[in-house]
């Protein structure tokens, strides 16, 4: 399946740099990059020492907690500094709590097995857009009480993320990561095609089409423009928003898959892919665009010209090919407004947990400002040691982001990365997220199916979306009622 799924594969050493963080929600085939990287334990130990002093200051208050908890979908041993540093912060604050980690990414079937098991999880990390399914089934504990006891100020977290974890007025999880997407453009290829990234107007879809065609005509690139909508759907909600619509109503109760902006977004992205010779050809070519996570990546080898990508990928590029020339451009709506789709994870307490205090302490501490800062310092130290660029992690915690992007990033005077880091930071406030729905899994499946059907040509966009609309709406209507 060189190409049947997104190109992602993390790797071995280069991965050590990039955040555990990509969250399980990144578009690269849903790589849950939590595994794969490893850091020397000594570094994390160093980090945790600095943690305790200021802990109470911004992370709220510590509560009484002890005993064992089991965190599902969270990795520690096999993870990187961003995960380790925060876990160590927690361990430092709560020395009496013993945390066990599943050391794997979230998967629904594994979570089900885990819940029924004798040693059921107390904490779970779920991609935010999938949380609703589990809340509707009563599996997730509301956090309102936990939040007030720990003194967490939700205003400190990005609004789009908090909305995603708030269902019927109750907060069910702490938002973790805030992956916004920008266009990443390969300068060399654009130049060869007679284009200039600086003047490329991405709010004008005709210009996107023209660039796509010019790149295909005038360069040897395998992929001109990848809208990132195939297979897992990835950035499709962002295209819909650019066309002025949304897949789901704000309250999560009404599917809007058959509305004109959705049809427009699908028709347009399909045309971009079709210009490569159809979806099959497109996927076969994706399989030949080099090693997404390695030094031989698509930009270094000039094999892919432009695609909208999440923030964490900057750090991958920084580690793998720091000399590459590329440009980050804000994604824009058709009327010229910058707009980005925010994705990330949710840390939640499992309703059946028998140690909710410790679980509460864990989910709040993991995303506290101090934890993020400790982890980012760790990362920066190791980057400095290797003289590497450090692009920062967007956390979903505003205070943490502010500190990270003002003092904990380091572009090493590399203008390409400096500009890219700034570009992403500039779009943090222009983000939207998928509203929560009790039929999250089915809803997601419905629109992803429609997108792929249309892309492969087995149905035209509006027909595919109409059918998906019916499926999605009936799933939402009967959600919580397990009958199909």
């Amino acid at each position, binding site marked *: 399946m060189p190409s049947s799924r997104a190109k992602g594969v993390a790797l071995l050493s280069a991965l050590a740099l990039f955040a555990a963080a990509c969250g399980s929600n990144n578009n690269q085939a849903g790589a*849950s990059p939590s595994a794969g990287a490893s850091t020397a334990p000594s570094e994390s130990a160093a980090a945790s020492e600095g943690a305790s002093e200021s802990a109470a200051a911004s992370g709220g208050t510590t509560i009484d907690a002890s005993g064992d908890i089991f965190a599902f979908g969270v990795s520690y041993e*096999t993870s990187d500094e961003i995960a380790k540093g925060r876990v160590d912060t927690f361990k430092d604050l709560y020395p009496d709590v013993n945390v066990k980690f599943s*050391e794997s990414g979230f998967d629904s079937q*594994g979570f089900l097995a885990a819940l029924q098991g*004798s*040693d059921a999880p107390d904490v779970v990390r779920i991609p935010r857009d999938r949380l609703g399914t589990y809340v509707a089934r009563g599996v997730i504990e509301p956090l309102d009480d936990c939040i007030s006891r720990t003194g967490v100020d939700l205003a400190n977290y990005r609004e789009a993320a908090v909305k995603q974890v708030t269902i019927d007025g109750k907060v069910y999880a702490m938002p973790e990561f805030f992956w916004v997407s920008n266009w990443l453009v390969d300068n060399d290829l654009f130049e060869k095609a007679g284009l200039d990234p600086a003047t490329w107007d991405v709010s004008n879809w005709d210009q996107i089409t023209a660039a796509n065609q010019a790149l295909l005509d005038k360069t040897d690139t395998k992929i001109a423009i990848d809208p990132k909508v195939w297979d897992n759907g990835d950035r499709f909600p962002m295209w819909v928003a650019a066309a002025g619509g949304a897949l789901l109503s704000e309250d999560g109760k009404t599917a809007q898959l058959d509305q004109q902006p959705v049809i427009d977004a699908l028709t347009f992205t399909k045309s971009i892919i079709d210009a490569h010779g159809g979806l099959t050809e497109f996927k076969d070519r994706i399989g030949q665009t080099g*090693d997404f996570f390695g030094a031989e990546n698509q930009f270094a080898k000039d094999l892919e010209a432009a695609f909208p990508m999440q923030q964490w990928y900057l750090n991958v590029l920084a580690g793998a090919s720091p000399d590459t020339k590329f440009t980050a451009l804000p994604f824009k709506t058709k009327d010229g407004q910058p707009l980005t789709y925010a994705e990330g994870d949710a840390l939640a307490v499992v309703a059946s947990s028998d140690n909710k205090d410790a679980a509460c302490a864990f989910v709040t501490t993991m995303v506290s400002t101090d934890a993020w800062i400790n982890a980012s310092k760790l990362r920066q130290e190791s980057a400095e040691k290797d003289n590497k660029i450090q692009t920062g992690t967007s956390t979903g915690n505003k205070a943490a982001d502010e500190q990270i992007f003002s003092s904990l990033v380091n572009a090493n005077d590399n203008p390409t990365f400096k500009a890219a880091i700034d570009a992403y930071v500039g779009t943090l406030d222009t983000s939207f997220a998928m509203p929560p729905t009790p039929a999250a899994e089915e809803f997601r499946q419905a629109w992803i199916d429609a997108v792929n059907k249309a892309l492969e040509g087995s149905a035209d966009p509006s027909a595919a979306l109409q059918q998906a609309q019916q499926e999605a709406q009936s799933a939402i209507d009967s959600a919580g009622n397990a009958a199909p």
Partner: protein
Amino acid sequence: MAVQPGSIDRQALQTGRAVAVTEAAEEPRSRGRLVRRIGFVALLLLFTVLFLYPFLWLVSASFKTTAEVFDGRLIPASFHPENYTNLIAQQPVVQWTINSVLVSFAAAIAVTFSSSAVAFAFAYFRFPGRNILFGLVIAGLLLPGAVTMIPQYLIWDFLGFNNTLVPLWAGNLFASPFYIFLLRQFYLGLPKELWDAAKVDGANPFRTWWSVAMPLTRAALIVVFVFELKAAWTDVVRPLIFLREVGTFTLQRGLLAIINNPSIGGEKHWELLAAAGVIVTVPMIVVFFLAQRYFLEGIATTGSKG
């Protein structure tokens, strides 16, 4: 609609002599025949290449770099055994191997003894309703796994064995219709005088089973054992349903995780995927070569009719 009982090359299995493939059906008598035979050998060689080449390719790919995997060479341009050490460093492959070995042997031992006991009962005892009961055994054979998958999951969960290795083998303590069917054929094939003689000697049914029937069908029991060893080793459905923590995975479940988790193998790190494929496959190939005749004769047996 019972499947016709299989007649078995009992002689070969019971005496344990090497399986001698019978001589060609006909001696070549004419030049035409000889030419035809040579043509067949050539064709068979071609198919042998088709069947075996993927293995060679996999082994070769496992020693290449990512960029070289699809370079079309069978001998890697550069040799990278560190793919294996990297993989083992990344993932608890050793633990998975231990889990797989434990599960496979427990499953094979359990099913061999339990099925033998049940099969023996169907051959040794005469009781009313024996055929109906045996029909039920066969009926169990035809039931698709998908039907029982969910309740079995709920049962093991209820028993508190979810997320342990137990459900992967303990079901085998309760015999398996296919092996009961297979072994019953062997026990029916033993002369009845054996049972009578044992009875005269004052042996109870257990002794008769253990000391007379079992040793006489040793070869058939080995067939059952190796079949189940292979089945348990290669199974991924149960590990997929019951296991969730990486440390409890079997090799097959681990390989699936590697395919699915792009940060290790999967996607474009084909050489690691290939290395993992070699690791999960080689033990079974070794077992196959050690117990070749049991595998081949067992397979041939299942298809023949009485």
